């Protein structure tokens, strides 16, 4: 077969190229639109606030790499980074495990109240999480968890769990029942089936919720600023806020802080996106 045989007919080839070119232009424009602010932020992170004030869009000259050292060491970003890592990793891990197990139970087992639980979970997604702030504050105070990383972690788990269960339940419900039956016939019990069948097959959905939860919690500000008061327990978003005074904002340092905080998000996305999502369920059943 010649190479041409795989191409569209000659008459349609011009149209095909035109549509591909148009698509490329749109994608390039969108990339510039989304990447532009990030690049601007990156240039500001290696410029001083004075330089930025003089010319907002100038190329860094010289590159003030020391701003990252100042942020990391002198402004305690290492502590904030560590606090954020502990809280977010623990919360995301708990949300993923509990959420996946709950979603599997709701998707697979028929039991009384199944849809009621699902309805309650779904209704909690509808309301803005901010309305729970005062009650959560009071609960944490009552249980001695206010101003603690554990308390913030638990709050984060409660905030992200409903959406996680909702997303995973939808995906797990589409896993063919025959796979569960086959695993039962192969001698596996419910927990083993969850671990060996549901989790690997559900990995695309789990990876999606993992990335979403990680990004959302890594950038979470409101609950952290209300529920944490000690400077040594601050998370990164609150730490960045420290560069903002009432009368002066250290734009250069804020940009450096944001650049530090954005690295794990990019790493999480790069790590979890393609490898885990590709073709996990194709061929499961006919």
């Amino acid at each position, binding site marked *: 077969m010649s190479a041409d045989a795989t191409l569209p007919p000659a008459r349609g080839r011009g149209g095909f190229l035109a549509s591909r070119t148009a698509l490329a232009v749109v994608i390039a424009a969108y990339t510039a639109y989304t990447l532009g602010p990030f690049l601007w932020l990156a240039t500001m992170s290696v410029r001083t606030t004075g330089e930025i004030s003089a010319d907002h869009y100038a190329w860094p000259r010289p590159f003030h790499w020391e701003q990252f050292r100042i942020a990391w060491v002198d402004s305690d970003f290492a502590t904030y980074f560590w606090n954020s890592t502990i809280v977010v990793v623990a919360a995301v891990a708990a949300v993923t495990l509990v959420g996946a197990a709950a979603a599997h139970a709701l998707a697979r087992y028929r039991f009384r109240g199944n849809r009621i639980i699902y309805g309650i979970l779904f209704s909690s997604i509808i309301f803005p999480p901010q309305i729970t702030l005062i009650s959560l504050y009071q609960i944490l105070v009552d249980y001695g968890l206010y101003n603690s990383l554990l308390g913030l972690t638990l709050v984060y788990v409660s905030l992200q769990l409903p959406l996680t269960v909702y997303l995973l339940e939808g995906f797990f419900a589409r896993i063919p029942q025959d796979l569960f039956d086959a695993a039962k016939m*192969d001698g596996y019990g419910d927990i083993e089936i969850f671990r060996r069948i549901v989790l690997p*097959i559900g990995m695309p959905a789990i990876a999606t919720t993992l990335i979403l939860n990680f990004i959302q919690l890594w950038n979470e500000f409101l609950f952290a600023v209300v529920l944490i008061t000690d400077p040594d327990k601050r998370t990164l978003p609150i730490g960045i806020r420290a560069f903002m005074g009432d009368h002066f904002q250290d734009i250069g340092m804020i940009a450096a802080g944001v650049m530090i905080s954005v690295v794990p998000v990019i790493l999480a996305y790069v790590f979890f996106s393609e490898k885990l999502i590709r073709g996990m369920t*194709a061929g499961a059943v006919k």
Partner: protein
Amino acid sequence: MAVVQLSRICKRYGSGGPVVVDNVDVTVGDGEFMVLLGPSGCGKSTTLRMIAGLETISSGTLSINGRTMNDVPAKDRDIAMVFQSYALYPHMTVAENLAFGLKRRRTPSAEVERRVREAAAMLGLIPYLDRKPQALSGGQRQRVALGRAMVREPMVFLFDEPLSNLDAALRVNTRNELIKQHHRLASTMIYVTHDQVEAMTMGTRICVMNGGRVAQVGKPLDVYWNPADTFVARFLGAPPMNLFTVPVSGGDRVRTAAIETALTRWSPAVLAPLAAGEVVLGVRAEDLHLSVEAAGAAAAGRIRGRVFAVEPLGAETLLAVETEGGTECTARLPRDTRARVGEVVDLFFRPDAAFLFDPRSTAAVPALSRPGGDPGRAGGVH
């Protein structure tokens, strides 16, 4: 090696829900290939799933080798099942799929390796051991599903319409492969299908189901030639058996404008109570001929009707005829048959090829002899 016994097995969904399996009483012998055959919704798959432990049994007893299995979880029954959808684990390679059940049973890794390679070699899967299911064709996937059951060396194999997703040619090959494997393994196998050809060619016995009940159990040819009722008579055979509701006249004959035959296979004592009323007369399509000579009997039965369809199939020709009473019947005739639509024809048959059924109960009227004229008609009903 196992004997599977179903005693008055019932399945009901919900407390007041419909009964989908009703008092099923069947014993599957050691090494037997039992086919559960019936139309969609007849309860055959539910019965199979109850044997597997994937459905609870509402009432009745399931035992394997004398041990009651009703409350034994599926994973502990030592049964392997091949699913219609293949149900291969998509995140595992072919080798991992084959070994998955063995690993659970803590089989030594050398033994796992040996059994996987043995099954793969037998099923021609060696080149695909490292592939994931999505990289396989339908036939290859089905062979992996079969291999996954085989490596376990279970007491009982269950098959839930395993060939229905394959194309016609592949279905024949896989069917032969399954027959071969049954001869090799000599294991107890229970196979669910709605395809009568699969049932007839594969089963050592078949269990025809209808509306959740067992309609008849027996060797395939016995069931074919001695159907217990009109449902079995029509379900086995393509085209289905021709049935005519006709009066009995003269005590031992049927004589109407369209149909005429002597009832030679039934005793006067059996026919006497029927003489006042009607019976259902059955004749298989292959027993109908366009001449007395071809029918092979001087006193041939006769059906007269108008041809409304001629279907030349190459190897044979199907003739669809409508009798005067409006009943349609089909004859399977030689390929060189010449008949025109609209033509009135006489179709002849040997009187001893006729079947008789009670029109109220639909049950077969007990005959003195087996339907004659075919060597395959010998044999006993089980």
